[in-house]
């Protein structure tokens, strides 16, 4: 049995757990705890170790999706989770510009851990107060070649599109390496 791993990361409350839930064929194995930080009390629980989703491709191949904990004090988990991944997705809440800086920082951290292909997904693009992608690109300081994709983590189709774009990037990198 071959296994492949994709990591879904991003700031606290970006929608990582929902993202994985939308496409996972199993109920996401989530390790959540009650929020302790007052500043981060915009939802009741947070992921402290990882979310874990699965997509079976065939008898011999399984894709695992790992979601990282969003709160910075659990960042010791990131390096462990990033080991051996095919690529990673940085999920950013388009309606919370106060998390953009954290998103940028997480992106730089992951790039340093593992030089693998990645895409950035702008979540909650269906909401009226979501930032435009062009503005987000500037705020997140993304270079033109970095894929910044619109996404709604609860909508399976947009989640599939993000995963596919990451896999296209992997294919492109494999082609460049030839």
């Amino acid at each position: 049995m071959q296994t492949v791993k994709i990591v879904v990361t991003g700031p606290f409350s970006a929608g990582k757990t929902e993202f994985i839930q939308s496409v996972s064929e199993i109920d996401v194995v989530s390790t959540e705890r009650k929020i302790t930080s007052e500043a981060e009390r915009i939802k009741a629980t947070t992921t402290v170790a990882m979310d874990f989703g699965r997509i079976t491709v065939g008898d011999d191949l399984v894709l695992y999706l790992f979601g990282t904990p969003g709160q910075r004090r659990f960042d010791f988990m990131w390096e462990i989770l990033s080991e051996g991944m095919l690529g990673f997705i940085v999920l950013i809440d388009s309606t919370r510009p106060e998390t953009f800086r954290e998103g940028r920082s997480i992106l730089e951290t992951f790039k340093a851990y593992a030089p693998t292909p990645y895409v950035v997904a702008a979540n909650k693009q269906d909401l009226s107060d979501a930032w435009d992608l062009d503005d987000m690109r500037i705020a997140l300081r993304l270079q033109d070649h970095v894929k910044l994709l619109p996404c709604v983590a609860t909508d399976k189709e947009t989640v599939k599109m993000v995963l596919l774009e990451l896999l296209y990037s992997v294919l492109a990198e494999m082609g460049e390496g030839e």
Partner: protein
Amino acid sequence: MALKGNLRDFTITQLLNLINLARKTGTLFVQGPTEKAQVSFQDGKLAYAHISGEDNFLATVLYRANKITAAQHRTIKTRAAKMSDKELGLLLINANYITQQDIIASLQAYFVSVVQRLFTWVEGIFYFENDVLPPNDKITTRVNLENIIIEGSRKMREWEHLQSEIPSLDMALKFTDRPGVNLRNVSLSVEEWRVVSYIDPKNTIRQIARTTQMNDLEIRRIVYGLLQAGLVELARPIGTAKLKFTVPGETKEEQKSLVNRLIGRIRTI
């Protein structure tokens, strides 16, 4: 009960506050990620500080404070290498090279700078030994801790901000391709120019810091300014492993086939 623990749980700010309020006398030993420090206090006031491996000979401290010249520093280090700080201080005062005030002010500034550096240590083990003081031949001072704590807290906030902006010093920098930006038209400080002169995707930020003899805080501060101004951007260093990812399969064709199978599967979800 000994005062000991981990900086992750009990910060330098909290430690200094405790020592100040309890008017403690003794020495705080801190083992940081790469260096060790010892800081001594008398009745809750800073008396002495030293980072291991760093030249804290009185002559060097005075030279760094511009109280003696490079030639005088060299001469003292050759001829008075075996002299204690107290003996050397007396000699210099009696020879009218410097005043007692110069010595005290230089040492105070040095000790404070050591403590300020500790504020950027967020990882490490510490323990406090009651009533342990520096060797008798060392000159001690009495500096109030309140201002150090306030300034240190400010530095800590800046450090946290810079660290979240530039989480890794192992990345490289490259100039942005924005049209119309000419570095000659930008007003940069001497320190910024020194960093700019080493910007090349071959050099990591850590290497630039080492070459320009800047500490983590100083290099982050400068790089942050250059990033904010849009003059440079972070890049993966040339020479490090090219993109690597774990795709099962022995040949490139097998690996491509596997990724294509993943694509096919996701399309059908």
